[in-house]
């Protein structure tokens, strides 16, 4: 007889009886026997599962502990472009190119901040209206350059004696998803490189928040200014 089929082996592994022919074959066939052993091991591990074995998320303090221990600034982080859909080899090639040109986004301190006004085409601008009692206002300008999209943010009179720091965000129209671009130094204008895969049209809202050194990666909900990019 030919080898037993996988259905018969699966049932045997579960302890069910199968046809006499199958039982006789498996008993004398090393290949089917070894396959059955593998499945039986899975069954016996599975039958030992207890309710507490189902994965449960760690408490929130663990993630805060990790970012603190690693000195990460937190904030909403954006994936780097990898071109994952094009297969693994391609993905790694794209990934290393992205790394090489410094396309790094994330929390404060890792955003690429250019110290010169880039020579690029203005795509859209936003008037940033006051969102706090301080009454500060500003502007945001979206440029398209050779290396991708750049966002320049300027808030005249941004105070330097801040308890914490300022962070620049791009958000969806409903502010449901926010991406931290990086920190904004007081009194300065800063330009941020947007993540390569990010469509600025999907994140038209520019927001600058007052953040605290508390390790909390989320937006503090203390917005200073906010506005919508318009072509």
């Amino acid at each position: 007889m030919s080898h037993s089929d996988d259905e018969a082996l699966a049932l045997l592994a579960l302890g069910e009886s199968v046809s006499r022919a199958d039982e006789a074959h498996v008993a004398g066939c090393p290949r089917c026997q070894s396959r059955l052993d593998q499945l039986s091991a899975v069954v016996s591990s599975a039958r030992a599962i207890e309710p507490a074995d189902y994965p449960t998320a760690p408490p929130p303090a663990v993630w805060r502990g990790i970012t603190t221990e690693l000195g990460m600034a937190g904030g909403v982080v954006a994936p780097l472009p990898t071109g994952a859909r094009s297969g693994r080899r391609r993905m790694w090639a794209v990934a290393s190119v992205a790394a090489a040109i410094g396309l790094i986004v994330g929390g404060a301190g890792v955003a690429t901040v250019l110290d010169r006004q880039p020579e690029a085409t203005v795509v859209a601008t936003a008037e940033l209206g006051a969102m706090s009692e301080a009454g500060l206002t500003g502007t945001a300008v979206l440029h398209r350059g050779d290396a991708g999209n750049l966002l320049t943010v300027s808030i005249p009179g941004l105070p330097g004696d801040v308890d914490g720091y300022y962070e620049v965000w791009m958000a969806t129209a409903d502010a449901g998803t926010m991406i931290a671009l990086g920190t904004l130094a007081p009194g300065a204008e800063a330009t941020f490189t947007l993540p390569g895969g990010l469509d600025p049209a999907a994140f038209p809202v520019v927001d600058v928040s007052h953040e605290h050194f508390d390790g909390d990666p989320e937006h503090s909900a203390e917005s200073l200014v906010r506005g919508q990019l318009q072509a």
Partner: protein
Amino acid sequence: MTIQSGALLVDERLPAASVPVTAGPQVAGAGAPDDDEIAAQFALGGDAGLALAYQRWSPLVHTVALRAVGSPDDAADVTQAVFVAAWRGRNGFDPAKGSLPGWLLTIARRRVADHWEARSREARRIAALGEPDHDSGSAADSVVDRVLLADELARLGEPQRRIMELAFFQDLTHAQISGVLDLPLGTVKSHIRRSLDRLRTRLEVDGVAQ
């Protein structure tokens, strides 16, 4: 065997839905990247790589730690230590040699062993005599297998998940399952074969290296 479907179908081993990661990392625009994409992000070294890996696999690591070391506080410490060590040592992760969750669980097993090693050193110091070593190695291995299988079971669609739970936990035959769930015999058999193979593959990919 009499089958009273009402009581039988409620299995205390069912987890209460899947537990969301509360106050965890926030990743922009990341719907549900697949495991390869997460591993690629992780290897790239951007903050999002760590955040995605944490979102996807911290419940696994945490539950293995919880089951292997017992105390919730120690489990939280082990989980934190695993992700910190993994991130600092990410250059040692080679996607060609294994899966990222498999690698994280390898680190977790080492941390669990360290935990028991420290405990038994402490015990020896206090008792001033040799304590039998806690058999942390094989215990942690079987914990890893059970947690991975529980995770994969929870990821099976329906009716596959229900079928496998009846087969594993209620010891029903495929014919009985077919009656309880009112599904054709052949359908139940083929779901059992495919699901069992999927569970086996999960152990092979992410489980303890043999």
